[in-house]
């Protein structure tokens, strides 16, 4: 006899664990299945920790606004220190064109109620003291965005979900579904079979494979990114700095000082490096440090402590794929490297999809993430 649950979540990561906690708090009997030996062991722990509502569309803006609320109030609500810091985000502009694009985006962002301002190079130098002002035209600054520790938040979600009686099966791989027309009747793993009312695909890198088991073709393609972290120093800078320029070998790169005082940095390689390969390459540090020190020479003596590699499960348009397919499968995949910042908000949204409690705003949000969209739009801030 297969064990019966209200909800089975595939993937104990940035999306799966928050969803599990929220569902369990709504009295759902939840099972989370993951191939790893512990929660958050794929890309959740590799997130750099930045959280912003500064996106370009209603869906992501609103999910992340909710995430920020949850993270900001986490300690008060749950008691755990997750290292939340309202340090803000900034997108400096170095060309007239970038300045124009950013300012146009700001209008849309203002219309969604985001607190985002334009600062002059001098004002920017107050926020990021010592920033190279050569060709700098100014920057956006969204002070309500912030950061926290993916490791601490991930663990906090996990422990609270255990308290809420969520069950976890680690080291277990989902290998197929038993289907009856468009309904998943059983989830089959390499160790057993389980039944549930709802099945949530939160499998990150493997979102496409899991969806395929239900006969769906979701365009999720992992791309490799590398990141690094330095030794800690006393606080000297505030917002995340996102340099959107394109340079040989790379698109944007970004860095910030986390709550421990360490600089965390990451770069988007160009062309993208498709696939899943967690091994570090010799190209990352030379490429990323060159751009970073050009923008912020003050960092030159700071020592790199560790680097790592993870994946952005990308979709063609840079928007997640979230929504119900068939009778009882909810896909929540293709987070495009933003699973950590979307996770807390997404956990609540998924819960409302599951319990059929969608609000008007939720419906609006889910339009951006519709699995059946044509993927031709482009996210400006991906």
């Amino acid at each position, binding site marked *: 006899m297969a064990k019966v649950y209200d909800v089975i979540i595939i993937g104990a990561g940035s999306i799966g664990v928050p969803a599990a906690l929220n569902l369990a708090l709504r009295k759902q009997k939840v099972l989370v299945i993951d191939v790893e030996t512990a929660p958050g062991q794929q890309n959740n722990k590799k997130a750099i920790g930045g959280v912003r509502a500064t996106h370009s569309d209603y869906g992501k803006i609103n999910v992340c606004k909710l995430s920020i609320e949850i993270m900001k109030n986490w300690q008060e609500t749950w008691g755990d220190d997750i290292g939340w810091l309202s340090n803000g985000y900034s997108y400096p502009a170095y060309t007239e064109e970038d300045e124009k694009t950013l300012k146009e985006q700001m209008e849309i962002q203002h219309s969604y109620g985001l607190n985002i301002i334009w600062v002059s190079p001098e004002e920017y130098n107050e926020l990021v003291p*010592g920033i190279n002002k050569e060709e700098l035209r100014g920057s956006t600054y969204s002070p309500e965005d912030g950061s926290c520790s993916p490791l601490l938040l991930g663990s906090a979600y996990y422990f609270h979900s255990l308290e809420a009686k969520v069950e976890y099966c680690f080291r277990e791989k989902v290998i197929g579904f038993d289907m009856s027309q468009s309904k998943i009747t059983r989830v089959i793993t390499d160790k057993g079979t389980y039944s549930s009312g709802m099945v949530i695909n939160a499998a990150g890198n493997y979102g496409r494979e899991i969806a395929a088991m239900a006969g769906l073709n979701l365009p999720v393609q992992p791309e490799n990114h590398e990141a690094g972290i330095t030794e800690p*120093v006393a606080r000297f800078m505030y917002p995340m700095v996102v340099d959107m320029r394109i340079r040989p070998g790379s698109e944007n790169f970004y860095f910030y000082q986390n709550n421990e005082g360490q600089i965390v940095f990451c770069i988007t390689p160009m062309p993208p490096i498709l696939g899943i390969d967690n091994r570090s390459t010799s190209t990352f540090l030379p490429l990323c440090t*060159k751009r970073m020190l050009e923008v912020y020479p003050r960092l030159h*003596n700071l020592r790199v402590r560790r680097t790592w590699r993870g994946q952005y499960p990308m979709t063609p348009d840079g928007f997640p794929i979230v929504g119900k397919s068939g009778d009882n499968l909810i896909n929540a995949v293709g987070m495009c490297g933003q699973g950590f910042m979307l996770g807390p908000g997404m956990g609540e949204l998924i819960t409302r999809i599951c319990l059929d409690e969608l609000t008007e705003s939720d419906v609006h949000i889910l339009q951006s993430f519709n699995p059946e969209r044509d993927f031709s739009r482009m996210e400006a801030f991906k």
Partner: protein
Amino acid sequence: MEDHRILKHPILPIEEREDVLFTWNGEPLLAKKGEMISSALIANGINIFGHHHKDGSAQGIFCANGQCAKCTVIADGLAVKSCMTAVTPGMEIRSLEGLPELPDTAFIPKYPPLEKLEVDVLIIGGGPAGLSAAIELGKYNINTLLIDDKQALGGKLVLQTHKFFGSEEDSNAGMRGIEIGKLLALELQKYPSVQFWLNSTALFVFSDQKVGILKDGIYKLVTPHIILNAAGAREKFLRFPGNDLARIYGAGAFQTLVNRDLVRPTNRLFIIGGGNVGLIAGYHALQAGINVVGLAEAMPQCGGYKVHSDKLKRLGVPIYTSHTIINAAGKETVESITIAQIDSEFKPIPGTEKSFACDTLLIAVGLNSLSEFTQEAKEAGIQVFSAGDAQEIAEASSAMFNGKIAGLTIAKEYGKEEVEGIPSEWYAKAEVLKSHPGKIKDYQKDLPEQGVFPIIHCLQEIPCNPCTTVCPTNSIHTEDDGLMSLPVYSGNCIGCYKCVLICPGLAITLVDYRNDKEHPIVTIPYEVFNIPKTEGEEIELVDIDGNPLGFYPIIAVLDVKKSHTQLIKVQVPQTIAKRVASFRIQAKEISEPLSSPLISEKLPDEAMVCLCERVKVGDIRKLIKSGITNLNQIKAITRSGMGPCGAKTCENLILQLLREEGIPTENIVSNTLRPLFIEVPLEKFPDGD
């Protein structure tokens, strides 16, 4: 201020060095030109370099090897590892209190392109194994790059002032480690196909088959076809309440300070661990003029060679077997430690506690192979070999031998047809050289009380034979002519002292009945003559175990400069002549315990596991008890292993805790291996144009 420099050493030359003025927290002090900041501070009696930003705990020297960051100070405004940064004239050095400030920089630096090169073989580590392998590769003219993170070749050999064990023919037994290191380095330079980079640290073997190396502060990418990991080992740490006090560290750090930098970091040293590393460190301490209060070993017998432990006992250092450390106490640095006897299950027996005043605690509880480069190379798909301690923990004599084997294996692998097969007896010998000590036997019986002959106070089977090869009349053999068995005297001694001088254990005396049969002359080797012994002085003679045999005057001191050894002659009654093994040099009072033991209120779970991020045993144990057995998850929750040393110290302690809690090995998930091996400034990496 008391000078903490070693001004007199029986083995090491003390060279005149220029003084350099620097300031410490505003106070002017003198350093020696070119020396590391840490040693300059210790020479001036400064042992607290700052306070940790998390809990304000005192920080000081720990690894003396650039691996951790506990010795960080602010030098001319910049946070630096004091053990890796040389003092410059006028340098303003400050203690690091909390997190350092990052200074502002006005300039926009320009970066040159990174140097990239290809080599056939990359050897990581220029110690006994790496050097021996490189020499073999040199003989076959294979393009080899050997890198070492120190300023001189030789690895840990350069810190070994004692004579080496092993076999004379294969591993230069009887020579001092420092001399062997120099000999190998010299030989290496004969081979033009081998280049070596000093001050060069391998940072990671990347997946694109490039090895990132920081050479003299410049980052380079090397693509090797084959890698030999000869990077040695790292020391294990121990958990006990108070293990996070300043002035607790390993033998490597101690030997670096004492034998490389010639500073005296302690006046009263206590040692935990009776393996060869701990025993030898104790001996080195005596040679540096440091009082060794005692040595504790958990097992009923020291794991190191008996000749090493005998040597310490005879000189007056008590060895407490079946004892463990209960705690270390002190305000910021160690002021006292408490040991207790343990039962067969290694549990301390209440009532057996003894406390000792000491200012430094040396932890020598074993080594772990430095295996990460091997693992990284495998993951990158590069053919990789390992030798020396990186392969298996053993003596340097064994490292030299298996380095040779590795070198030849690689040459063969590389397609050098002319490489003959490695003789099978090489493998056999490599096995013998890494043997653990064997049986303890009795003294040789039936030696006549006439003439002159050696008394061999070497009663434990160890892989060592220089006494047998040095004898000009061929009068010493091992029992079965094998390397491991005990040497026995068999005939025609001419009293040349060669065996007395070469024995690495200082375990041969010469008894001469020729002048006065009733009062023979006993000749004892001595190499702690920083504590001078002169003719006429009464010394307390002791037997092999350090038991007193009475006071007798020295009748002669022969200075054998070439072997840095003195021969001390005494005339004693026939009844004790054969038992005289040495004499006490350290006064009994030095090793007296405190009148009553200081029982700490701290529980074992208050011991620190992660010194970098200040994570205690209790925090980790709680997680393990809740079912968490993945080191990555433990790290995520506690930050244990996320500090500057990169889990080099805590990982092993956490694994021990997991075992202690009964977690089967197959359920334990190890830390994921990530770059970089050590922290490196961002400015080293940009690939400029």
